[in-house]
């Protein structure tokens, strides 16, 4: 478990009331814009480059722990749970929420307003969904290694905002 302070690159766009938990990494060019309401990001998340997290609602947008949000993804819903993966260009749109252990596949999106239940996998084109049958046991091992690596390497090559 990574208990370091969070790592936020300088070339990101941060606006509004944002709280980022310990260990979370925010890569370059990400934008976290709390337009109408606050954004609360949990611990040990990996938010990749060009991700857009926008809160258009007045209620807080809550992102849980140990999520991995890959490049160019969009999170505009009301929040996501823990241990989810939003893959490259995946979208959580409208007022949707993601449960825990979900995977939003590459270029897949949730419906505009649905609460995606736990363990759901959105995949394919045309998009379909299924429920995963494993308990996502192998996720944490890889995720922690990823976090460790990023915490080690990212500050060497990118300017980091000092954590308050």
């Amino acid at each position, binding site marked *: 478990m990574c208990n370091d302070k969070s790592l936020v690159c300088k070339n990101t766009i941060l606006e509004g009331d944002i709280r980022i938990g310990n260990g979370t990494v925010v890569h370059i060019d990400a934008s976290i814009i709390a337009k109408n309401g606050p954004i609360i990001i949990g611990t040990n998340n990996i938010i990749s480059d060009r991700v857009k997290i926008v809160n258009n609602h007045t209620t807080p947008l809550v992102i849980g722990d140990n999520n991995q949000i890959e490049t160019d993804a969009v999170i505009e819903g009301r929040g996501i749970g823990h241990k989810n993966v939003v893959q490259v260009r995946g979208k959580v749109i409208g007022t949707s929420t993601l449960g825990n252990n979900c995977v939003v596949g590459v270029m897949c999106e949730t419906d505009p307003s649905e609460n995606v239940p736990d363990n759901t996998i959105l995949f*394919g084109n045309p998009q379909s969904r299924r429920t995963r049958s494993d308990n996502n046991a192998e996720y944490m091992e890889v995720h922690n290694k990823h976090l460790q690596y990023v915490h080690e390497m990212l500050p060497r090559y990118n300017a980091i905002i000092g954590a308050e």
Partner: protein
Amino acid sequence: MSSELDSGSQLGVLYYCPCSGCMRTTDAPVKDSKQKREFAELAEEECRAPLDISTQKQLAVLRTWPIEKLYYCDDCSEVRCPHCVIEEPAGYHCPNCTFDVPTASVRSEKNSCARNCFHCPVCTHVLVVVVVESTQGDGGQSCSVLSCAVCMWDSREIGWEFETSTGISAQIERMRAGGPAVKEYASLLDYWRTVQRTASATAVGSHGLTSSASFKHRLTSAGLHGNTTSVDSLPPYKAACYVDSGAELTEDFKALEDANIIPFNGDPRTKEPQRVRLHMKLSRRCRMCHHILIKPESKAHNSRFKIQLLAANFLPTITFPNFLPASKARGSLLEHLNTTPLRVGSTAPVVLRFANPLYTEMDVSVDVGELDAAQTDVLAPRFTLPPFAELWEYDEDEDDSSLASPSASSSGRDSVKRGIIHQHGNQIAIQLDVTPRAQTQKLTIPLCITCTHLDDMAEMDTSDTSTPRRIVNTFWAYVSLGTVN
């Protein structure tokens, strides 16, 4: 978008391959003289008679090809289309692991990859072998499973866990070996092998063939000959696992119907991953003389060709140039061509560009087939295409435009060059004046093109000291000009 650009997207040139001998040359090798006479008659008939587009349109569509799809047999000196070539496999490989499968293993592995290549039963993506913790036995033992990266499907869902991460196929075979379906298949195979042995033992004249067609032939011939150990005397097949009566179903029969091995059907939990099918690399031969036209490298990762005889390397390529550099005399840099919309009654200039792929000069003559829908005048019916050479040899462009006023030169030169819009390197652009007579969605003009060139390969043949032979190729090209308003 203007209408000119819309009709521009419909411009195209298709080459016609009659596959009946109409594209024969003057002296191509023929198997026998009778065939040669027949072909010569057909050739004269079709090339002389005007091609009636409206009646033969449906057939012609099957026989017209863009030049990229045509091959050329340099032995017969003729064009070959994909219909008149013989295809044969030149190598088998797995598209996933790019492993070259030797031909002997292809049949034994039923045209599938024998290694770890499987399709996910849910999303048909290719599965990956992953080492995980085993759920069976004591926890903590690692095993290999097949998993899909797209839909997160796991082979643990159907209970497949493997000890090693290689040779998954072999482990699956072992798992299935005890099942009723496999036993039934094995006993069926034994039975029919005995039948085949009996039939071949009684057949007259052994051909040594093993195809199913010859097997049936031998069965029937054995019956006709009425030998003592005929096929009929063999006992009928008895099911090894399944009861023969239709009403009763045994446990084993139910297992067969479980859709366990039928793919992409029913409940995903009972689907099994399918092995990845092998891909073939094909080589193509001329149907007449069996000369190899296309021969790819047999290795999977190598996409080159050992032999590549394409029509584009022997016949002139006809294209519609969008613009050409205008002559220096006229001053402007670029001239837009082929933009005049076609209207009934008005004459529109159409520019076609011929490119010579050969290293020798090529004489081209263009004749128009009869067409009711339009009248076409070819302003430059005969011209010579210079050979293809490196660009530095072209010191000056020779721009002769028939549209510009004739320069101070002899009238003889004018009459030859009239109709030639532009000449650069190995390409000549000629002008056709098209006067449509009726409205159509797609105006297509047939052109009969004859190209003649000297065979430079003959000069290398030391025994042949006579003059190098001339090769004449005649073919029809359909030029689509788009909509006529």
